[in-house]
C-alpha cells in the first residue's frame, strides 16, 4: 500500500522506507519554533532535562509575537527569558521587536521552511507551513524542549483525509472562506489526529497566501497537519524566499485515505463562523442584521499583504462606521513596509482605522483590542471560543478580510457586495 505526502515525509525523517498509520516513530526535525508564551516553559523544561546546548542553533526559531511589544511587566519578564536564552545559545533565528512578525507569517517569509521539511512549533498554528508541502505541526512546550535538546520528536503516523479541489473561487471569496466552509462541513474534530491533504486541479488558482490561510486553520478541524501538493506556485515562492535545499514529496497513486472530499471552489460562498466554534458557519442568506463594535484584520491567518490589499480595496474612499473600532495589523515588518509603500496604510488611516505594529495581540485576547462584556467583533483571526478576544460574554465572528472590511464600513456583518458597487 502506498503512502500519503505526510507519511512519506515522516518516513524519510525517521530513516524508514515505510510507515503505517498508527505507528509511533522518532523523527528528526528541520526546525523547532516557540513564542513568548510557550518558549519560557520550554526553556525551563530544557534546563530540567540537563541539556546544555541546543542541537543546532540554526534550526531553532524564537519569535516573541504574542504579548509584544511587551504589554505588561510579567510579559516583559517572559520575553527576557527568551532573549537571554537566545543570546546564550547563539540562536540564529531569534527575532527581536523590530525584526519580529507574527511567527507563521514570518517563518515562511524568512525562508526557514521549505517543501519536505519536518517542523514542530510550540504554537498550534504551526500547521500553516503545510502550504509549502512541509510536514508541520503544533506541539507543547515540553516537546519543544526535547526537540531543542535532541533534534527529534515522537509522532504517531497519521491517516489522511484527501481534499480534491477543482474549479475557481468566485469574486471576493478567499482561502478563509474555503477553510471555514470545510470546517463547517467536517466539524471542529472532523480531522482529529489526521492529516488534511489538499490536491487537485483547483489548487493552481489558489495563491500562496490563500494556501497559508487554509493550512493555518487545519488545527481548527482537529487535524495534526494540513498539507498542500507542491506545484509551480510553491516552487516560485520557495525560490524567492529561501536558499535551503529541499525535496518534493508526492503522495503515492495507491495511498490510502480515510475519506476523500471533492470540492468545487466555485460553489463556495462567503462564509462567516459564528460564536463560539469555528464549525458554526453561516452564509449571507442566513446572517441578517448583526451590529458589531470592532473589526480586527490581521493575525497568522489573514495578516498577509494580499489580505491588506483586499481590505484597502474595500475601504478606499470609505469611512469606517463611527461605532466600529477598526484595527489593522500587518503580520510582519516586511508586510508593513510594503503596505506603506503601496499606500495601503494611508487608505486605512484615512478611512478611520488604526494600524498596529505586528503582534498576535487581540486574536487571543492579549492586548491591542480587547472586547468588553456584550461586545461583538468581526475578525479575520482563527478562533471564536468563549472569551477568546476578551470578556467571557463577548463574541467573535470569524471572516475573510473582505467581509471584515465591508463590516467595518456598515457597522454590521456585511458582504463586500453591499459596499462595493
Amino acid at each position, binding site marked *: 500500500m502506498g503512502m500519503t505526502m505526510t507519511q512519506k515525509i515522516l518516513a524519510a525523517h525517521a530513516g524508514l522506507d515505510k510507515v503505517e498509520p498508527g505507528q509511533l516513530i522518532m523523527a528528526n526535525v528541520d526546525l523547532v519554533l516557540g513564542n513568548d508564551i510557550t518558549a519560557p516553559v520550554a526553556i525551563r523544561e530544557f534546563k530540567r*532535562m*540537563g541539556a546544555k546546548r541546543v542541537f543546532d542553533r540554526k534550526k531553532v526559531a524564537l519569535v516573541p509575537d504574542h504579548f509584544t511589544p511587551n504589554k505588561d511587566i510579567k510579559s516583559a519578564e517572559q520575553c527576557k527569558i527568551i532573549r537571554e536564552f537566545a543570546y546564550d545559545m547563539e540562536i540564529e533565528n531569534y527575532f527581536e521587536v523590530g525584526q519580529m512578525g507574527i511567527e507563521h507569517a514570518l517563518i515562511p517569509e524568512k525562508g526557514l521552511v521549505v517543501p519536505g521539511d519536518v517542523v514542530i512549533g*510550540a*504554537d*498550534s498554528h504551526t500547521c500553516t507551513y503545510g502550504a509549502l508541502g512541509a510536514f508541520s505541526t503544533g506541539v507543547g512546550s515540553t516537546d519543544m*524542549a526535547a526537540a531543542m535538546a*535532541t533534534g527529534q520528536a515522537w509522532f504517531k503516523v497519521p491517516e489522511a483525509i484527501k481534499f480534491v479541489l477543482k474549479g475557481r473561487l468566485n469574486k471576493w471569496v478567499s482561502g478563509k472562506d474555503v477553510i471555514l466552509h470545510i470546517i463547517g462541513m467536517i466539524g471542529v474534530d472532523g480531522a482529529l489526529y489526521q492529516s488534511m491533504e489538499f490536491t487537485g486541479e483547483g489548487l493552481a488558482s489558489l495563491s500562496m497566501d490563500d494556501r497559508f490561510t487554509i493550512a493555518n486553520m487545519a488545527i481548527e478541524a482537529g487535524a495534526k497537519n494540513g498539507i498542500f501538493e507542491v506545484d509551480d506556485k510553491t516552487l516560485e515562492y520557495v525560490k524567492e524566499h529561501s536558499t535551503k535545499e529541499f525535496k518534493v514529496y508526492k503522495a503515492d497513486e495507491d495511498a490510502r485515505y480515510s475519506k476523500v472530499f471533492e470540492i468545487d471552489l466555485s460553489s463556495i460562498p462567503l462564509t462567516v463562523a459564528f460564536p463560539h466554534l469555528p464549525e458554526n458557519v453561516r452564509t449571507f442568506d442566513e446572517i441578517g442584521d448583526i451590529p458589531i463594535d470592532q473589526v480586527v484584520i490581521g493575525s497568522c491567518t489573514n495578516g498577509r499583504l494580499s489580505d491588506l490589499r483586499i481590505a484597502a480595496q474595500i475601504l478606499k474612499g470609505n469611512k469606517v462606521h463611527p461605532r466600529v473600532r477598526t484595527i489593522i495589523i500587518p503580520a510582519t515588518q516586511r508586510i508593513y513596509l510594503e503596505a506603506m509603500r503601496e499606500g495601503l496604510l494611508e487608505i486605512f488611516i484615512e478611512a478611520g482605522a488604526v494600524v498596529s505594529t505586528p503582534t498576535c495581540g487581540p486574536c487571543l485576547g492579549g492586548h491591542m483590542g480587547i472586547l468588553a462584556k456584550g461586545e461583538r467583533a468581526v475578525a479575520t483571526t482563527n478562533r471564536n471560543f*468563549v472569551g477568546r478576544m476578551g470578556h*467571557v460574554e463577548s463574541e467573535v465572528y470569524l471572516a475573510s478580510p473582505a467581509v471584515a472590511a465591508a463590516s467595518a464600513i456598515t457597522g454590521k456583518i456585511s458582504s463586500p457586495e453591499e459596499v462595493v458597487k
Partner: protein
Amino acid sequence: MIQGKAIKYGNNVDTDVIIPARYLNTADPKELAAHCMEDLDPEFKNKVQPGDIIVAGTNFGCGSSREHAPIAIKASGISCIIAETFARIFYRNAINIGLPIMECPEAARDIKDGDQVAVDLTTGEITNLTTGRTYKAAPFPQFMQELIKAGGLVEYVKGRMGAQG
C-alpha cells in the same frame, strides 16, 4: 490506583476556557491553577478537591498548544481526565507532563457529575464506585507507557541523553 469525585463537562472544552490567555503572562503552576476553567465554570476552583477526576465529551483540550492548560489542571489537584476523545496537542502535552488521561467514550458518557470514580492506570480499568459499573479504556501503546513510567518526557529525555553519555 486513582480515586476521586467526577467533575463533568461537555464537548469541545477548549484551552482558552481551561486557562484564558489573559493569564498566560506567567508559567507558574499555582498562579495558573487559580484561574483554571474560569471562563467555563467559575466555581471550579472552589469545588475541586485533590484527586478529583474531570470527565468530558469529545475533543477535550482543543485549540491552542498552551501546555499551561494541562499544567493548570494538574496543579488544581485533578488526578486524571476521562474523555470520549482528546484534541491531539492536549493529548501529547498531558502525557509529556505526566497528567494521566483516558480515552473511553462509554465511561465518559455514563459517569455523572459527583460520582466517585476509580481508575487503574496500568490496566486501563475505570470503575464508577457510585453505580458499580466498570469500563475498559484502550491501554497506552508501549512507547507511551515508557514515557509515563519515566515520569514524563523530561525524565525520558534525561535518561536518553545520559545513556548517550
